[in-house]
């Protein structure tokens, strides 16, 4: 009856930004990020990724309330960088890692399917009712990544210079 709509879990209302941040009034190089309509999948991933950075002194996240689909991320960095830059790097690193993982999975799937096509009897014995995926292996095709947007912005094409991903809706 008065249950919140289920789509509130992932639909960002009009005029609300995906991610906002405020600097900590008392601690230098510390900021609180509020990410809308996300959960532990993303929160924990970014936190883990941040903690791998030597310049990150503190990184933690919470979901303040189970009915509010918001992730609050607190980050403190050393003086030679900024929290928002480290968060952007953490996000880009995670995207790159997932892209790599996707390519690896497609490659492995191709390998397994070729193997099964070569020895279908063995597989059939094991599981008669279930038809084995016999389609031709696709490993030769280069993987088209869905996140083909440039991970590094055009302005930063010189090596070593890094800018946050423009597709992540943050204004720096």
């Amino acid at each position: 009856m008065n249950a919140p709509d289920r789509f509130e879990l992932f639909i960002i209302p009009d005029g609300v930004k995906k991610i906002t941040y405020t600097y900590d009034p008392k601690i230098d190089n510390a900021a609180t990020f509020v990410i809308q309509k996300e959960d532990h999948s993303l929160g924990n991933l970014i936190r883990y990724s941040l903690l791998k950075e030597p310049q990150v002194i503190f990184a933690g996240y919470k979901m303040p309330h189970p009915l509010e689909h918001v992730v609050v991320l607190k980050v403190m960095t050393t003086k030679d960088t900024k929290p928002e830059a480290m968060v952007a790097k953490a996000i880009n690193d995670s995207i790159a890692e997932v892209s790599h993982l996707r390519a690896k999975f497609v490659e492995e799937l191709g390998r397994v399917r070729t193997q099964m096509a070569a020895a279908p009897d063995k597989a059939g014995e094991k599981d008669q009712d279930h038809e084995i995926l016999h389609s031709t292996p696709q490993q030769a095709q280069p993987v088209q990544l869905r996140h083909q947007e440039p991970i590094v912005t055009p302005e930063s094409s010189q090596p070593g210079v890094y800018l946050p991903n423009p597709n992540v809706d943050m204004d720096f």
Partner: protein
Amino acid sequence: MNPQIDLTDRNGLQGDKWVGPKPEIKIQDLTEENIRFTLSNTDLSMANALRRIMISEVPTIAIDMVEIELNTSVLADEFIAHRLGLIPLDSTEAEKIKYTRDCSCSQYCPICSVEMTLNVKCTQENVTKDVTSKDLISSDPRVVPIYSGKNAPGVLIAKLRKGQELKIKCIAKKGVAKEHAKWSPCAAIAFEYDPHNRLRHTEYWFEEDEKKEWPKSKVGAEEPEPSEGEPFDYNLKPNKFYFNVE
């Protein structure tokens, strides 16, 4: 503010090249309905995010709106509507179908939905007619009910006696399981790491002897068993994750 930071000396992303840890994936078993694989060289957060996303954020197609024209069966309209929603449909082409909320139409249209009809009447005396997902007629050959194996019976929707009839129009839409579990692409995901509890992320309850009372993990052979009295290394991190997706 545009902080320009040199990242050449760090792991992770260098320019647009990933030089951080490279996750590895190994498939042990693959059938139409099941995949067993091992993910390694990555973090617990990545493995867990993968698991969570497989459960709740992969878009699929499921019946979302039902218009019941005629229902003289013993089951209530909403009961049948709920059962229709849970029927697994082929969602391989889900990427090509729009979410209704992103579509320009007001309720549904061929761009964001697939229409299916169910039209069954029992005419025979003293027989119970099973209405299954095989009776669902889809307007789109890409989105049809799926079965395990060729000879599998369809998913049972209702049972009819003589004179009882069902005339239903269904609208299948794209969605994610965060909204309703009927859009979940998987039945179950088994996720396991650290079979010998080296990391002490858990503590086994036991009456007399832990080793006697707890069965060994099936994936235990994948990792070396710690020797008796080995000191606890609190710097260890989980590195190998075992998945089974149904």
